């Protein structure tokens, strides 16, 4: 705008930028970060490989290594096919493992200074955690879909209706979403990506194995069975299985409605408690 020969190509300071987060801007920021985090999953080969190959490897190994021996010991609804029993459980297991990526992604951003950059921008603070958990939900959905497809290919058949099957998938994903908040808290406390790896999988492994994910809990010793039957992974797995295979998949005395209700209770309360904890940990982690 002047008579100088050099055109003023550099931006002059802009006073028009927003200064307050509104509801609309919060949604917008969350979407921007969700998209960014999803791209991370697709574009980093190691992340993509880990999240696709690992679940399929689990599926194939368990089906073909354990399937023959275990098939006979299952409730009749499984029709003697371990894959029918395994698939709902594996869906939960993969969702739980997948939620771990929330911690790893967050610590990665923390250690690279990306979170600092976000915090220096006039954006909604909540978008960082929301964008992270939504993206992980999206990724989990894609992984579960892929695993289901392979499952159908190698013989999985739901025994109820397509709607109930879908409801089961949705329940598994909702559970994964609630666990994302637990993982966010873990990630924000350990802060270091490598430390996050073990901090995430250490608690997850025993919880997944001491549950009905792979086998019915009946044969476990009493002390373990009591724990297994009452921990959220079992409840969610039971509800999922009853939705996909029918109530015959449940133990004596268990019914779908109560397993479903308890599962939803777990999902809602875990989400509430841990999202609050995560917000607190986020504030603490960065100051």
């Amino acid at each position, binding site marked *: 705008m002047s008579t100088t020969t050099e055109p003023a*190509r550099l*931006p002059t*300071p802009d006073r028009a930028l927003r200064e307050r987060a509104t509801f609309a801007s919060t949604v917008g920021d969350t979407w*921007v970060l969700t998209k960014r985090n999803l791209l991370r999953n697709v574009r980093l080969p190691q992340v993509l490989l880990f999240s696709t190959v690992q679940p399929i490897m689990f599926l194939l190994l368990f089906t073909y290594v354990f399937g023959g021996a275990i098939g006979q010991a299952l409730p009749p609804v499984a029709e003697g096919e371990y894959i029918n029993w395994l698939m709902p459980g594996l869906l939960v297991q993969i969702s739980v493992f997948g939620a771990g990526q929330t911690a790893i992604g967050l610590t990665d951003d923390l250690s690279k200074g990306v979170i*600092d950059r976000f915090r*220096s921008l*006039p954006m909604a603070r909540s978008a960082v955690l929301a964008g992270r958990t939504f993206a992980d939900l999206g990724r989990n959905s894609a992984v579960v879909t892929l695993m289901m497809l392979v499952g159908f290919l190698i013989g999985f058949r739901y025994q109820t209706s397509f709607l109930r099957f879908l409801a089961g998938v949705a329940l598994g994903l909702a559970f994964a979403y609630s666990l994302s908040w637990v993982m966010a808290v873990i990630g924000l406390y350990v802060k270091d990506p490598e430390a996050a790896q073990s901090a995430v999988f250490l608690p997850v492994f025993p919880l997944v194995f001491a549950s009905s994910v792979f086998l019915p809990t009946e044969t476990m010793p009493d002390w373990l069975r009591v724990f297994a039957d009452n921990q959220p992974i079992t409840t969610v797995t039971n509800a999922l299985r009853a939705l996909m295979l029918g109530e015959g998949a449940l133990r004596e005395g268990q019914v779908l409605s109560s397993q479903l209700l308890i599962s939803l209770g777990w999902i809602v309360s875990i989400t509430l408690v841990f999202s609050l904890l995560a917000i607190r940990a986020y504030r603490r982690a960065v100051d």
Partner: protein
Amino acid sequence: MTSGAVDPIIEVQGVVRAFGDVRALDGVDLVVEPGIVYALLGPNGAGKTTLIRVLATLLRPDRGSVRVAGVDVVADPNAARARIGLAGQFAAVDAFLTGRENVEMVGRLYGLSARDARRRADDVLERIGLTRDAGRQVGTYSGGMRRRLDLAASLVGRPQVMFLDEPTTGIDPRTRLELWDLIEDLVAAGTSVLLTTQYLDEADRLAARIGVIDRGVVVQEGTADELKDAVGGSVLELVVPDEDRVTAVETISSATGEEVAELGGRRLRVAAREGSRTLLEVVRALDAAGVEADDIGLHRPSLDDVFLAVTGEPAGSDLEADRELADPAAATAGSGGRGRGRRR
């Protein structure tokens, strides 16, 4: 410059920030007028990054007040964020996004519409010389390109104040010159810049004013000239033949009554309290002693001397900084490790 009349763009008063027992900032006072480059100069651990983080709303001060662009940073951080740009000590760009995607994303988070963000991203990328590589994933960029991209991302919001934490550490000499030009253009376009640096030549070249920070306190403040004057008189530097060095040192010190510093090689340095009179005395004494100097010169103190006098240690006294001074391009890995460990 008309000083006094304009409102300062940065106003820091009595800022204290401790980490456990470490008082990273121990009562910092700082006033910066708008439209200039202000350089914060200080050794490792002086508190430069901590001060930048306080100014950029990333850290709350334990005590003291901070105003940036007229906004109280502690009371209204989001209003401050709309007016500032930050390029931290380590480039915070996403390796899995392209250069353009990185800048666009930051533009969106500044509150720009998708279309404005794209347009401004293109502008900024062109200005910073990354248009050709804008479509490539940042994972394939060199360290210098990442730093430039980081800067581009901070510029997309057209901030009134830019905070640059060691903007040219770990960057090759040519890119460094480009960045200096860019910073000067920024200021010409009306942005105020506060940068930290360990390079004295950088402060000398870019900064209208310099603050020397040490152990969490701004210990000296002024233009480069004012700082040099504050250190005191001139120095005399000589280069003498190797075989005459010992004689020269004795002769000069008895002629001036000052201690002679041997700078390595064949260079000697001595304080010249009386300027050219001292020069003459030294030349005469050397002549009488039969020593012929290869080179002799009277210098004003350099910022190096200022740094030494003010902080009690030569600029870049630790090993890492030495390497950076000698070879800025080789320092990326070292400085990265240094900061990571500290960031916690």
